[in-house]
């Protein structure tokens, strides 16, 4: 029962990834202006172009390139960056680390905060504190994140000089120095992500709050804290896990703007650069990583909510 569902989810995940790979390949191969031209820039002359094109092997038909590319992907060979000439693995390596580190810290901070605040707000619906939380989060998700980020920089870095305005890492700083370097993007992302998750947690709980068993709990004289934490939370956990997963995916792939503003060498920024230099293998590799992460996270979320559901966990 449960096993079947989990397996089914995994199957779906794979199917999705295949489709993703096709879309990514097509999407990237419609990019105009070819790498050779980009590399040579102003000095591009017909013969130099031809030479470079041949060298880059841009003359085979599409499907051939797709399958060879897919094959390489499978075997973990991400190919050579056309522009840089370095292997993509080497380019991505460090960036992926940075992205993961950032995502990790943000998750570590924001998830507890969000769930706590979300539950707390759901526990006291209609009170002015609840209103503050709901309106506050609402406002935060309603303005562009680059605005939030810039305001924070102007206050914390430019005016008060408390924090560095960019996430510049030398690589040999101590843990504290590192935290200081990452502070600004961290804060920004925590704010952006938490706002989402708080709202969803609250909504998820209140959604369950309409069920008869909650009324029963009230009629049994169960205190509100326990109603929320024991009776409501465990039934709302599915959607909550899902939201967390989505936000994690966003942290890995969607933070272009924050990375740009804070000059943080993350994967998203790398992909942008890749697009701008028409570095297709690079773009494809990044895209696949992003989608892979997304699919896996969603998969985990699904499995999580399946497992968290007693109906599926222990069959009749």
């Amino acid at each position: 029962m449960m096993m079947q569902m989990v397996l089914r989810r995994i199957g779906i995940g794979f199917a999705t990834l295949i489709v993703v790979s096709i879309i990514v390949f097509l999407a990237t191969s419609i990019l105009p202006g070819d790498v050779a031209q980009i590399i040579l820039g102003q000095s591009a002359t017909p013969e130099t172009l031809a030479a470079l094109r041949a060298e880059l092997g841009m003359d085979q038909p599409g499907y051939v390139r797709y399958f060879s590319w897919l094959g390489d992907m499978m075997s973990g060979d991400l190919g050579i960056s056309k522009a840089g000439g370095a292997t993509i693995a080497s380019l991505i390596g460090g960036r992926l680390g940075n992205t993961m580190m950032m995502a990790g810290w943000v998750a570590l901070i924001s998830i507890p905060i969000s769930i706590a605040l979300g539950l707390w707000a759901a526990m006291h619906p209609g009170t002015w504190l609840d209103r503050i939380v709901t309106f506050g989060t609402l406002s935060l998700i309603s303005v562009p994140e680059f605005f939030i980020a810039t305001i924070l920089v102007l206050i914390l870095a430019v005016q008060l000089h408390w924090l560095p305005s960019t996430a510049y890492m030398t690589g040999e700083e101590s843990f504290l120095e590192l935290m200081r370097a990452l502070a600004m993007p961290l804060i920004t992302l925590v704010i952006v992500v938490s706002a989402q998750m708080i709202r969803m947690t609250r909504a998820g709980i209140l959604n369950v709050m309409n069920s008869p068993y909650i009324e029963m709990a009230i009629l049994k004289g169960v205190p509100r804290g326990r109603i929320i934490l024991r009776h409501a939370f465990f039934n709302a956990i599915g959607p909550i896990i899902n939201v967390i997963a989505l936000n994690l995916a966003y942290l890995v792939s969607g933070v272009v703007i924050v990375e740009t503003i804070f000059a943080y060498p993350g994967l998203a920024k790398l992909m942008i650069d890749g697009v701008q230099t028409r570095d297709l293998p690079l773009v494809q590799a990044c895209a696949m990583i992003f989608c892979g992460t997304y699919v896996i996270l969603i998969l985990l979320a699904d499995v999580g909510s399946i497992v968290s559901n007693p109906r599926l966990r222990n069959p009749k």
Partner: protein
Amino acid sequence: MKDKFSPKSTPGEVKYSDLSAYDKALVEKAVRNGYSRRDVMKLMAVTGVSLAAAQNLLSTGSEAIAQTPKKGGSVRMASNLHGPDDQLDPPLFTSTIDYTRGRATYNSLVQHANDLTPQPELAETIEPNADATEWTLKLRKGVEWHDGTPFTADDVIYSMNRHMGEDSTSVIKSVLESIQEWKKVDSHEVKAVLNTPNADLPTLLGLFQTKIVKNGTTGDGIGTGPFTMESFEPGVKSVHKRNENYWREGANLDAIEITAITDEVARVNALIAGDMQMVTQIDPKAFRQVESAENVTLLSTPAALQMGICVLKNTEPGSNDDFVKGMQYIQDRERIVKKILKGKGSVGNDTPISSAHGPDFCSELPQREFDLDKAKFHFEKSGVKSAELFVAPVTSGVPDMCLLAQANAAKIGFDLQLKKVPTDGYWGAVWMNEPLNVVTWNMRPTAQSQMAIQFGPGAAWNDTYWNNERMGELLSSVLGELDPAKRHAMMCEMQTLIHEGSGMVIPAFSNINDGIANNVMGMPTVPLGQLGGNEWPEFIWLA
């Protein structure tokens, strides 16, 4: 003793050393800002000296600033662009960040002084033959590569040959076309054989891409330069440590870190917040912010950094001269300089040459003014009702300049549509392809090379496809001409030809605007690129 690089200076009455502290500071600031006429006037007012004296004072001043350095410390520099395609291989250098890294890591045969006169670097002497068709270069002895091996003629031959031949992917291949071949004379002497006379060869040998790499290498960071490469991550950053057995006096800083912050707002904030000591490309929007911040200085170097609109002559509508005239007359040049460049620039006269080019600039050529009636007249004469201009932010101010042109055109009922395209792929796909597009050119060290590269008949980058035989003759003959007066006359004729006939609209020249922390001293002011023509790594020091 090792001889030291210094900008050449004419002897004058007033010495920097005998100025009061206040005046010293003033001079310093003037030098920093790349002294403009305004600065000179100020100086004359203060010190009550003659123009020449003031000029000299400023140059000696800059020398003085460079002369009293402190050792130690390190700086972080943020350029405006970088990516996975960052280069350490000189022939492929395309961006400021590449140039800067090159400058820190390698040397050229020749180096440019603040006033653009070529100075010997790895070449001790450069001697032309009578008709300047064969140049003999004596190479510096006792120079060592970072890995300890000695620098010889073979390295030079190898490096220079990489710009030549069919399969060369060198960015400046076409610029060095006049060189036929490089001959090795002995271990420390080489010959350059030209197919046409070229008095400016020394200048060309100082281009960013002509850095000398070790024989057989393709720019792996082993150079003879003032700094050794500690680490290099394309699109992230590079770290450089002082080269302790540098052949010259050597850099003052222990280390420099070179990175880029692509977001202009973030870049400025980083400077003001003190995370970066030097940043390039300050957008005019941010001038006030930088100037009003007390811990940083806005470094504005007058240069012939042209903000150009290319009207292709080989196709509609550019083939119609009146249309070009119309485009030239709708440019509100004063306003561009005042409003868009916030005064940090100079009015252009639809020629690529500005006062920054010194004596070769044709000041006699009457300035073309903003004149809507003339524009209306010419547009109507041309019969063209509307046109589409492809705009990319090739340099700060250009898009806004086009917006202004559009607004003005609208006033006289001409419909100038702007098609904004991103910079990526621009040079490949739009520039020299679309009938109307925008362009910017880094200032070339000589007026001749500047005009040759853009307006030489059949030149690879003749980006308005304006081919004029007379222009061609002048371009080649001027190189042989050694009499200043005649030379100036020829220069003037060429500029007039461009002003009248070409498809180039150049309403303004932008200064090179960078920001540095106040404690950064001894900035060179070479107008060839960002941050003193990227010459800074070897010379700056921290007060």
